[in-house]
Structures are given as structure tokens and as C-alpha cells.
């Protein structure tokens, strides 16, 4: 309980710092949301009146205070570009990013764990070499390139999906999944490679420890040792890594969303930064911060479930 309260405190302090920093950065970078929104034809009067309306003439700290008090009441403000409440705009984008994250996570878990175990078990064999070369290769390919290659192969040549013909989850969920599976694969491939390598080295480290020898000497078969003894221990560092991956995919895959023209949070963030749409940027940054902190918190708890020793140490 005490632990949870402490974590909650960290969450609030972090959010506060992050929001202040974002606010501050937006003051420094060139560009102006009013000019960006009104364009070249804007008259001075129009710019002035919009500035007044958005409260941009107030001093920096007053504006930050106004924003903060809005957020406390659950009001993230209105987008300067779309003239719609930020919360509605984000609510429409969020499912895309979350489904993309869930789908790519499933792919990552389904493939990386068996492959990681396999490569550790078959040490020195051809299959380990294949896995190592493939992981090396896929880690080296930048995601945007991978996305374009996948679009070319599955979209243009094989015609398994129509590039760019994104179908909204509310229109047809099956077709929606059928489309986002490809960006999900794009996100998953390099992450699978990293997970496989991580799991493999973690397993190998464990396999050299004394308790493994003891387990063998008790007459256990390799499978038994691996699945009942080693895997659990090897998973602890992997879970930390997995947590980072989850936070990463939930934060929105900016580049992949751009390549596949997905209307997710990542693309929305980029578009809003170039529009200098401050309320939207701030809200998305806050969302990302919350995701990272909450996932870390959950991982913390998960550790204790897997390894009671960590629980006792606290």
C-alpha cells in the first residue's frame, strides 16, 4: 500500500515536470499557433483577436496555471487547428494506437519467446545461426523502410491489403484488424529480434549457474530444467525489457503510422507539432508520460509475483 502511494507521488511529480517542460519548450521554438492556424492571408486584427481569445497574451506562468487548472478539472482545452475539444480528438485516435500496440505485442510474444528458447537450446547448431543472422538483419533495418517493403510486397504485389485504405474500427472491425496487422508486423519485427537476443543471453547466463547443475544432477531432463527452473529466473530481466517495449508501442509509433497513413496518436502528435497546436501536443505528451510510468509500475508488481525474493527484500 505504502509502495503504491509512493509510486503515485512519483507519477504526479513526473507529470508536473513533463508538462512544465513541454510548455517551456513551446515558448522557445520558433512558430506561432495563431499564425500557423490563420495562414498567410491573416490580417493583423484577426491574429490579434485570436491571440486574445486563446489567452496567448497572458504571461507564461499565468497561461501554465490556466492550463493546469483546466487539466485538474479534466479539461485539456481546445485544439487551435481543429477547433474541437482535445479530449474528443484524442479519444478518436487512441483506439488505433492501442489496437496497433496490442496486436504487435501479441506478435512479439508469440514469436520471440519460442525463438529465444530455441536459440538457447540449440547452441552451436545451424538453427541458432539462422536465428542470429535474421535477428541481426531485422534489427538493422529502419522501421520506415521495413514498412515500405511490406507495403510493396503485401499491398502492391500480393494485394493482400490495399495500401492506405485504412478502415475505421467502428466501420468494420475485422477489416480494421486485417489492415493494421501489417503495420503491427512492421513494429514487431525489430522488437522480436531484440527480444530473442535478450532472452537468449539471459537464458544462457542462467544455464551456467550452479542451481542448474544441481537440477541436472537430481536427474532432471533438459526440458524440465529449462521450463521449470531456468525460464522463470531468466524472465526477470526480460520483463523489464518487455515493459520498455510495451511503453514504446503504446506511445504511438510515429514513423510506422506515417508510412501506413494510420490516424493514430503518433501521426497526430507530429501533425500537431507542425501546426503548433499546443493543447494537443501537451495532452499527447502527458498520455505518453502516464503510459511509461504506469507500465513501469505494473512491471514492478509483476516482478514480485514472479520472484518472491524481491518482495521480501522490500
Amino acid at each position, binding site marked *: 500500500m505504502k509502495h503504491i502511494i509512493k509510486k503515485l507521488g512519483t507519477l504526479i511529480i513526473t507529470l508536473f515536470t513533463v508538462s512544465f517542460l513541454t510548455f517551456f519548450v513551446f515558448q522557445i521554438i520558433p*512558430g506561432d499557433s495563431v499564425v500557423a492556424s490563420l495562414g498567410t492571408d491573416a490580417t493583423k486584427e484577426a491574429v490579434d483577436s485570436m491571440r486574445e481569445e486563446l489567452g496567448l497574451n497572458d504571461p507564461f506562468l499565468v497561461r501554465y496555471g490556466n492550463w493546469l487548472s483546466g487539466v485538474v478539472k479534466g479539461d485539456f482545452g481546445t485544439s487551435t487547428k481543429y477547433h474541437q475539444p482535445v479530449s474528443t480528438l484524442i479519444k478518436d485516435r487512441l483506439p488505433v494506437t492501442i489496437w496497433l500496440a496490442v496486436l504487435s505485442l501479441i506478435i512479439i510474444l508469440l514469436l520471440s519467446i519460442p525463438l529465444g528458447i530455441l536459440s538457447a537450446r540449440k547452441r552451436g547448431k545451424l538453427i541458432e545461426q539462422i536465428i542470429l543472422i535474421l535477428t541481426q538483419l531485422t534489427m538493422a533495418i529502419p522501421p520506415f523502410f521495413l514498412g515500405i517493403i511490406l507495403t510493396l510486397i503485401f499491398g502492391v504485389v500480393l494485394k493482400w491489403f490495399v495500401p*492506405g485504405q485504412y478502415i475505421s474500427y467502428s466501420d468494420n472491425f475485422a477489416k480494421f484488424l486485417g489492415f493494421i496487422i501489417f503495420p503491427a508486423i512492421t513494429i514487431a519485427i525489430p522488437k522480436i529480434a531484440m527480444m530473442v537476443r535478450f532472452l537468449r543471453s539471459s537464458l544462457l547466463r542462467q544455464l551456467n549457474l550452479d542451481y542448474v547443475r544441481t537440477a541436472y544432477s537430481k536427474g532432471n531432463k533438459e526440458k524440465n530444467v529449462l521450463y521449470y527452473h531456468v525460464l522463470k529466473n531468466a524472465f526477470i530481466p526480460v520483463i523489464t525489457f518487455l515493459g520498455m517495449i510495451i511503453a514504446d508501442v503504446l506511445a504511438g509509433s510515429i514513423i510506422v503510422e506515417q508510412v501506413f*497513413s494510420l490516424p493514430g496518436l503518433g501521426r*497526430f502528435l507530429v501533425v500537431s507539432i507542425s501546426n503548433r497546436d499546443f493543447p494537443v501536443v501537451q495532452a499527447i505528451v502527458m498520455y505518453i508520460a502516464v503510459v511509461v510510468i504506469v507500465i513501469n509500475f505494473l512491471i514492478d508488481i509483476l516482478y514480485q509475483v514472479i520472484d518472491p525474493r524481491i518482495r521480501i527484500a522490500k
Partner: protein
Amino acid sequence: MKKGKLKFAFLILAVFSLSIVLSACQDNMKKEKVSETPTTDANKSLEPTYGGSIVVGILQDLDSLDPHKAVAAGTKEVQFNIFEGLVKPDVDGNLVPAVASKYDISDDGKVYTFTLRDGVKFHNGKLVTVDDLIYSVKRCAGLLDKTDKSIVVEPALSNIQDVVKVDDKNIEIVLKEANTELLGYLTFAIIPKDYKDEATKPIGTGPFKFESYTPLESLVVTKNEDYYDNKKPYLDKVTFKIVANTDSAFLELKSGAIDIFPYLTDDQANQLADTFNIKTGNMNLVQALFLNNAVEPFNNPKVRQALSYAVDKKAILDMVAGGKGNTIGTNMFHAFSKYYEKSLDKVYTFDVQKAKDLLAEAGYPDGFDMTITVPSNYQYHVDTAQVLVEQLKAIGVNAKIEQVEWASWLSDVYTNRNYQSTIIGVDAKLAPRDVLERYASTASGNFINYKNPDYDKILDKAIKTTNDDEKVTLYKELETLLTNDAASVYIQDPPLLVAVNKKLGGYTFYPVYVQDMASVYFTK
């Protein structure tokens, strides 16, 4: 073991390269197949049919659904299908009556009378009344009692003093000062009086009705069955799909997800030439190397003239646009042919020696260093800048390209005028005055800081006169001043390359920035 490893690596490589070759082959085969089809195309009748739905790719998201609040050109080009004004542009750039059936401008240029067209209905089924007209004009001119601050009032419309109801058919727009060119600004949308949801469920009188809009995704419009021109529109549904960039649009065109895309690069157009009809039009922009006349060395007219001589415009067109597009000699584009002073094309012919002499006279015999600030989202302008840098080397001018984000460009270059030179395209609405007015010494759009008292005087006279011939002459004088002063290095009106699905007909170019879908149809 080592050998085995090596063998294995080779195997992988071989499989990989084979798969790439195979997929490339498949691609080629397809291309060949497709290229056979066009021969049958000519035999097909090109008669229009009714019905069908298409997807049009657009690059910019909409900034507002309310037509009076939208400012982005990318928004207005699609809103053209939903809304109509008292008048609207036709394909030749003339203003033709739309919601109004006829208009009359008083001889002193102060009173505009409009007659409401019979039987025009809003998308909600209600008949348009003169009260709706008055409301719309007042809303755009900022004359409503309760003004909504986010409505953008066009400076030209602030000249409207009052809107008067004459009878149930006619209204009069009374101006403070005479202006015979105001008609070009009266294309703004007519919307229902006191309708509150214009920003979420817009209602207009255009050939298509608003169906749905999702930010970052699409705007969907459907056929307006009650449209007063009973021949149009042909299509039942048009989806304007917002694409992330031209590259993803290109893939979507190849896969068939998009039927029409208006902003191809020259490379893309060449690659799509087999599978799409490529239409070439003009962007109707003045693309120039704009020089900040207030900073050194560009405050010296000789330097500006030297740069104008040093630039080979034809070579630029060849490099960036595959030779398409038109070069320009002054701050006007060819679509306004009535106002374009053609002789100015020959003032600065490409002449390196003359440029060098002028630089020497100006006190820069060895050239100088300069920075060209270019908005990075406009690849076309960036490409132009790259060619320019090479050309300027010949006269010893060392230009450096600085790419900035659009928002930074707007605030630093356009608004604060804190730059040395930039490449951009300047557009105009239907009035040629729009392109020339910005160079008045005090104009807010005069981002190049051009100052010439003669220019201000002539401009004032041109605006005030109600005699059309005199106006044309004065406009041409203004263009001549800009060219002779070498206010900037005028380059070209870039080509607009549009990919259109081969099954579609009727795509038309306008001298203004619109995507008219009412004239598009599926051929039989």
C-alpha cells in the same frame, strides 16, 4: 564449421536476392500487361454516366468545416464542392452567378445588386431566402451584432458598409469606397441564417452534401439531389482522403485506393503514366526567389538585378518539372492573361556576364554569401532552391539552403520578415489585385519589404478607378515597376500534375485552387 557458416550466409543472401528479383519480375509483368490496355481506351465511348463513388487524395487536413472560418487553401479547394457563393468562378476564371441568378454593379462602383436564383435549396431541404444571403454577407464582413471572433474577415470585405434587403428577391451590398473588383471576393459560402452547427455539420447549397469528417482521415460528401443544375453532379459519393505525404499517396494510387491525386511530382507522374491519365495544369502561383529588400546586399537594386540575370529559368523548369510549367517575368501568372504584361518576360534574359558586371558595379566583384530559407514541406521549392544554388555559383554568389518547418517559415520569414531570401509560391484569389496589393509599402503581406512611392501611388489609382481598361493599364505599370526594380527573382508558375483514374472523365482545371468534383464522371 567456419566453412559451414560461410556457406549458410551465401545461401541466405541467394534466397534474398532471388526473392527481390522475383518480386521485381512480377512487377514488370504487371506493368507490361497494363500498358496494353490503353489501346482499347480510344474505342470506348467517353459518355458520362451517373452514379459511382471515388476517392480523392488531399495532402492537407481541413482547418475548419465552417467555410467562413477556414483559411487554408487546402480546405477551400474541397469546400468548393459543398458551398457556393453569390457568384463562383468558372473554368475560364470568369465569375458566373451561382446562388444569385444575376448581379449588377452601379457605375460608381459602390452598390452591388444581387438577385436570388429561384428554387435554390440548402442541403437541409429549405429554400434559400434573401435573409440567408444578408446573414452570410454580414457574417463574412464582420457586420453581425454578435461577432464570432474566429470568423476570418477578408480585408477587402471590410469595405462593405451595409447589406440591404430590397425585396424578397433582391439585396444590395453598399460599399464605403468604390471597388469594382469586389465580385472576386463574393465567392464566400451562402449558409442558412442562424444555423449553429456549421462547424460540425456544415450546410451549404453546393453540388455535394456533407456526410462525415474525421480529422486526419477523410471528408465524405454525397450527391445533392436538389442541386439547381440538374445535369450535375454525376457521382453519388466523393471521399476526400487525407494522405500523410506524396510518397504514401503514390503507393495508394498504385494499389487503387485513390482515384484522383492532384499533387504528383514529375517522377511520380512519369511512373504512373501507364496506369493513370496524367493531366497537366498550372498551379497559378508566382514562384520566385523572394529577396528581403531591407537587408544587405539585397537593398541594392543592382544586386537584385544581377541575380535576375544569373538565373536560367528554363533550366530550372527542365530540372525540377521535367520541362513543364511556365516561366514568368514579373509578379503575375499567365492565367490572368488580360493583366499579364508579356514583354516583361524578356527583361532579364539569362546572361552571366551582365550579372557579373552588375555585381561589380554594386561593389561585390567577388560575389557574396547568402542564405535561402525554404519551407521543408514543399519539396518543389526545395528542389528549385538546389538548382538555384548551382546557377548562382557562376557569378560567385555562394548560396546556402536552410530548410525550416512551415510553422517556423510563417512566423520567422513571413510575419517577422527575419530572413535574407526565400523561395515560395504566392497565390491569388480571383482578383489580380490580390497579387499586386501586397507590395504596397505598408501592406501586411509585403514580406519582401519592397518600398517604392511610385508603386503606392499607381496602386492607389488602380484600386480607385472604375474603368476597366485604365485598371488593366495601371496593373501592367505596377508589374513593370516590380520587374525593373527586380523586387525579387521571378521564376515560374509551377505545373500541377494530376493523376486521374482512366475510368473517369470530366476532370477540369480552374485558374483558382479548387477541386471540382461535380464535373467528374465515370465513362461508359
